């Protein structure tokens, strides 16, 4: 199927009009309201932050490779893990697939010309940039001559934050670092998320092409819809929580400060009320991506389409009722702990339904192993580990031991990186020909995948064991008996980083320098976005299509479109 390279003709001197050459010049990009261009801009920006956050991780792992202090002071280490968490979460994976692939694909998949509010879409991107800028500014430590140091300090720029990305009270109230700037950045970024979510909900409700009923939507659209609901409704909660934290820090009203009768656990309630649903913002779109890739590379309709759609929506709904499982050892009541533990078990069910359906899709299919499929298969393997270790953590008695150990660190890296980031990589490779009109190098793609997969497991599998042995998280140093596993983990981190770099260089190189035009639909997918030219024209479709069938009819018709 992928051996039709002989069909590609070299690009002539005059390229057909598409969204990339529709208008040229940097101003046309900065003022664009084209969802495809906005998606690309998000993609480039979040990739930059992925590498910055990744650098922080590599520095941490360099420190942790050997027992004993090596390169950093404990305070610097605290700053590193705070930065790693904040950047990776707020600046990379929360915008993640929705802002990049969602922006690009949603209107195409539903047969629309753009999202419901294109200018709001651009505003979302600029709000994101402002938040990102604030986060970078928060890194500034007072330096230089005396007057400059005083000025920076009075502006609140007192050094990079060391509270952890969770900004727990009361330390975040007392910390001498630039907490206000960092939480302010997260607050601003939250608005970007809210507006994107709002935009997507309205788009999917109102802009579907004639005949594109809810029951014919690709699962990626269902997943994006569920994600958008969470984005819109959960994010305001963290917004106001961070504002309250800032007010508490600046004006000392006492709501989170135990010395004044306040309740720091209340901060945790509000914080996790958002931060649990946010992990579903990260991973639900990845579920959608996998749901698009597996049928295509198995040449089989997706198994249990309705169940997958209902599962997406119920995951979104369930995500709001389990937040306190992050607080089992924070001092909440037994009643609350038991209730939330039971509820957390139940949220695994719709996810399991999805995994079962993906595997059932592959059963008796005609499977090929191109790079997107490799990432998709990797996703299933890694997310299974993530999900089952989550059950361990949901079990109250077990969590008392595992909380704040490396077990938790490994669990959430398996879900976020093994889930959402792998999903993003799968999406990038799968839709690369659609977005760019070119093709990446398949062989390099596979090699890079191998390094990512091996590196990731080498980094985080040992961390499960470390956690079980009692190694606490966010610790700058540890007893000598943990050293072997830490060293393995650090080596894995390097391999992992190499894999991602290699993969992204592959994509970037062929995007900018390849002269070979990819076929319009190299994977022979049946969904709407593949029926337009690659890259799509500015308006997406010459005429709005009329949809007469669902998009998973693989094996029913033979589409000989090579």
């Amino acid at each position, binding site marked *: 199927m992928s051996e039709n390279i002989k069909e590609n003709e070299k690009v002539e001197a005059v390229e057909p009009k598409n969204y990339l050459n529709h208008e040229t010049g940097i101003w046309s990009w900065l003022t664009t309201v084209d969802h495809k261009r906005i998606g690309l801009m998000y993609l480039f920006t979040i990739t930059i932050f992925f590498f910055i956050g990744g650098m922080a991780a590599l520095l941490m792992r360099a420190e942790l490779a050997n027992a004993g202090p090596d390169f950093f002071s404990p305070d610097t280490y605290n700053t590193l893990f705070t930065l790693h968490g904040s950047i990776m979460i707020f600046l990379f994976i929360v915008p993640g697939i929705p802002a990049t692939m969602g922006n690009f694909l949603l209107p195409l998949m539903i047969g629309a010309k753009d999202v419901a509010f294109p200018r709001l879409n651009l505003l979302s991107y600029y709000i994101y940039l402002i938040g990102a800028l604030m986060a970078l500014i928060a890194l500034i430590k007072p330096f230089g001559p005396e007057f400059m140091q005083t000025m920076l300090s009075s502006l609140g720029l007192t050094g990079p934050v060391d509270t952890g990305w969770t900004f727990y009270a009361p330390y975040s109230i007392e910390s001498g670092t630039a907490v206000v700037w960092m939480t302010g950045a997260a607050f601003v970024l939250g608005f970007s998320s809210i507006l994107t979510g709002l935009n997507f909900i*309205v788009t999917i409700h*109102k802009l579907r092409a004639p005949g594109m009923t809810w029951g014919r939507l690709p699962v990626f659209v269902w997943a994006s819809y569920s994600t958008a609901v969470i984005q819109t409704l*959960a994010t*305001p909660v963290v917004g106001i929580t961070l504002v309250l934290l800032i007010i508490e820090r600046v*004006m000392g009203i006492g709501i989170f400060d135990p010395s004044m009768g306040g309740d720091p656990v209340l901060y945790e309630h509000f914080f996790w009320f958002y931060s649990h649903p946010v992990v579903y913002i990260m991973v639900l779109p990845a579920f959608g991506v996998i749901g698009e890739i597996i049928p295509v590379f198995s040449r089989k309709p997706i198994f249990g389409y309705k169940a997958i759609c209902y599962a997406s929506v119920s995951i979104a709904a369930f995500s709001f009722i389990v937040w306190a499982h992050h607080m089992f050892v924070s001092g909440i009541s037994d009643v609350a702990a038991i209730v939330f533990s039971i509820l957390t078990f139940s949220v695994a069910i719709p996810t399991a339904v999805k995994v079962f359906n993906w595997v059932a899709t592959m059963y008796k299919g005609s499977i090929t192993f191109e790079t997107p499929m490799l990432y998709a298969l990797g996703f299933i393997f890694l997310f299974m580990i993530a999900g089952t270790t989550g059950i361990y953590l949901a079990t109250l008695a077990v969590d008392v031991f595992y909380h704040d150990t490396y077990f938790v660190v490994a669990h959430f890296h398996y879900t976020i990186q093994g889930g959402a980031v792998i999903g993003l990589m799968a999406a990038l490779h799968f839709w690369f020909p659609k977005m760019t009109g070119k093709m990446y190098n398949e062989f390099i793609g596979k090699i890079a995948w191998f390094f990512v997969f091996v590196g990731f497991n080498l980094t985080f599998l040992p961390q499960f064991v470390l956690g079980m042995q009692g190694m606490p998280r966010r610790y700058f140093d540890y007893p000598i008996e943990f050293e072997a596993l830490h060293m393995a983990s650090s080596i894995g981190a390097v391999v992992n980083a190499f894999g991602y770099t290699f993969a992204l260089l592959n994509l970037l190189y062929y995007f900018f320098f390849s002269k070979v035009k990819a076929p319009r639909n190299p994977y022979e997918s049946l969904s709407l976005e593949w029926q337009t030219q690659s890259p799509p024209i500015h308006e997406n479709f010459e005429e709005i299509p009329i949809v007469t069938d669902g998009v998973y009819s693989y094996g029913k018709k033979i589409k000989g479109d090579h």
Partner: protein
Amino acid sequence: MSHTEVIAKAGEAPVVHHMDTKTAYDSAKLGIWLFLATELLLFGVLFTAFAIFRWMYLEEFTYGAEKLNWKFGTLNTVILIFSSFTAALAVDAAQHSQNKKVYKYFFISIICAFMFLVVKYIEYYAKFDHGYFPFNIGYFASAVFVCLSFAIGAAYFGASKFCGYSRVKISIVSIVSAIVLGFIALKIFYVEGAHDVVFNTQEFNEQYKIFFGLYYCMTWLHALHVIIGLGLLTWVVLLAKKNRFSDKYYTPVEVSALYWHLVDLIWIYLFPLLYLVG
């Protein structure tokens, strides 16, 4: 770049390149309702915090509430309900192409909004005098005025896009009013003694800070939304003056009125909770 660069004719919906008029209207409606949902959750957190702390410190909260001026609170409630009423009437007028009435009713709502802010300010100032104010009133006053200038400036800018208000004139008016209001803000910020406010610790222990802190947070956030609403109302009033609306196009009126109703809705819950029940 912008697909609405065409200045739409009075009474007609702007042309949008990817939606027909009805879809654009339906999308705007769903969009604003979703936005109101986010506002509900925003305030909901504060209500939850208030609820749990009231449960914890019942005496401080009930005693503290007696220090609040319920008469001013009632007055503000009536003002907001009335402004909500006129906003609804304005939407009705817009649906019948009566631009002059839209102008009249929204203008009344704007006046009500200003009255609300004035009453609020009087309340805050009185408390500052008694030392119930745990922090510098100058911050609040400045913030209010800065936000006001932004709101009004944005309103003018928004209006100018469609109805040919001169962009240059509008920019000058906005910048000048921002400077004037900012100046007033700074003046208040440095009002004598503002920096020396000390919480009245003879009468109140630390837990009262939680009550008053939440009171100020909730009412200040609400006041901020009043100001944003003011901006929206001003925008519509400017458009109505140029007969922008008709029974075929009145989306901004409806969107702004919905936002304004939300402001009223939040106050309907804030008032009894803070002032009456404590």
